[in-house]
């Protein structure tokens, strides 16, 4: 199946698999193979080819752009277990494959938050860090009494466990290409129908009974746990590499809705915050040229 056409979208120049501790990861590269490398990290429930417009812009400035599908996402293998730490280990395996020299790392949403944590653990591997609307912070919720919050947790936990019980035979719901695009559009109302159709053509597969997203059906969005989003900004002040955060000003369901004033006090000495007031969570999809320009101003244009 060839991808549905979308203006500016380019198929990767190279695609290959690497083994990450037993899980197969699909790697997608844009740009010349001998150009200096940078790493591009997608968000939760996304996949590498959501960078099909953004990555070629960086590649045309002289970069070898390396992205991969996180375990269970896109063309990568479906694992038995999924966790934040496993994703970070996979990221390190991709980084090891690229080589030992420090490289620019760019992450969107969950991928951005993960790369802040990896930057803290492996700062010597980073030349620059760019975060695209991926600084987690506690969502501003209206005042709720604590017993009410406890009841909400009870419902969340029970619903999550009920869904875990059903994952044994779980399959993604099939549909036409347009139906899948429409479903995704409900999560991403700011993205154009043409882009969503393009995403289906590269992020879903066509079975005999219709199109299905490739993502592992046992993965459940949401969930619960002791992870506290504020822990991520605490890592920012100690980051030694040049750092750029690009925040979209329009709040969306898939974003953390982090307000600039929550991030600004934690910026590292080499840090900069760029706010795009009229843009949503997918800053690199809504304004690819503008955001690529901001990134290239930071990391340079090898040409």
């Amino acid at each position: 199946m060839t991808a549905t056409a979308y203006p500016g979208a380019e198929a990767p120049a190279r695609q290959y698999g690497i083994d990450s501790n037993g899980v197969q990861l699909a790697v997608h590269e844009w740009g010349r193979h001998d150009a200096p490398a940078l790493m591009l990290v997608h968000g939760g429930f996304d996949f590498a080819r959501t960078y099909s417009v953004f990555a070629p812009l960086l590649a045309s400035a002289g970069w070898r752009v390396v992205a991969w599908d996180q375990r269970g996402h896109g063309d990568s293998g479906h694992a038995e277990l999924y966790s934040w730490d496993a994703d970070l280990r996979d990221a390190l395996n991709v980084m090891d494959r690229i080589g030992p020299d420090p490289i620019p790392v760019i992450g969107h949403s969950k991928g951005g938050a993960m790369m802040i944590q990896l930057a803290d653990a492996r700062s010597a591997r980073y030349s620059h860090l760019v975060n695209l609307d991926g600084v987690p912070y506690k969502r501003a919720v209206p005042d709720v009494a604590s017993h009410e919050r406890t009841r909400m947790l009870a419902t969340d936990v029970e619903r999550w466990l009920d869904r875990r019980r059903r994952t044994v035979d779980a399959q993604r719901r099939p549909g036409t290409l347009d139906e899948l695009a429409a479903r995704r559009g409900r999560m991403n109302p700011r993205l154009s129908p043409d882009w969503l159709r393009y995403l289906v053509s590269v992020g879903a597969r066509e079975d005999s009974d219709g199109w299905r997203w490739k993502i592992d059906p046992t993965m459940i969005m949401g969930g619960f746990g002791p992870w506290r989003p504020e822990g991520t900004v605490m890592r920012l002040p100690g980051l030694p590499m040049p750092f750029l955060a690009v925040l979209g000003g329009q709040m969306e369901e898939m974003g953390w809705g982090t307000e600039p004033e929550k991030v600004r006090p934690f910026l590292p000495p080499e840090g900069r915050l760029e706010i795009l007031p009229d843009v949503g969570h997918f800053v690199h999809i809504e304004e690819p040229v503008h955001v690529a320009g901001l990134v290239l101003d930071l990391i340079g244009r090898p040409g």
Partner: protein
Amino acid sequence: MTAAVTWLRHGKVRLALHELRGGAGRPLLLLHGLGERTAAMPSWAAPWSGSVMALDFTGHGASTVPRGGGYTAETLLADADAALAHLGPATVVGRGLGAYVATMLAGARPRLVRGAVLVDGPGIVGGGEDGPTPQAYFRLGEAAVSPDPYALFELSRDLRPPDYATLFVRLAVAGSGLDDPVAVTAFYRPPWLAAVAAEPGVLDTTIPAALATYAAAD
């Protein structure tokens, strides 16, 4: 071990549920600690009139060893929930990490967990109140061995805030209909377990006394 094994499914993982001893009445579900399996009937379980069942968590005992890790205590909670789905209402005894999972299970399925007994054993000993968790990412051996080194590595450094554990105790108290749905028998109490023990609705007792209490409960 000659115990009869029932194979359960949790996602792509096959879980071994061992019947250590048959019996009429409510089952006793044993959850082992980190790196363990429950191979034999503990002597303190002998007076229990129902069956005595032992679950091997993911990556432990005879259960599937996954590729490339990815463990969380919440994953093990869903393992234990798969056992509850099979057994129906049960009294749960957890050692170490299994005690932590038993606490969460008591809050998550308060009508099915008829008492959770928290016992000493290997597992989560941390309990940072705030701040980032420790971090180290590296490649472990590739061969699938049980207990899975990834389970030992990931779950042993998984610091757990005390107020997260106590939330589940409150859910158990609110939803179980039992006066004291959780019993702490452990001598060693990391911060999360000390916080659990201090909650209303939590007994501070011995294993035999806790089992006698829950055997008599609805």
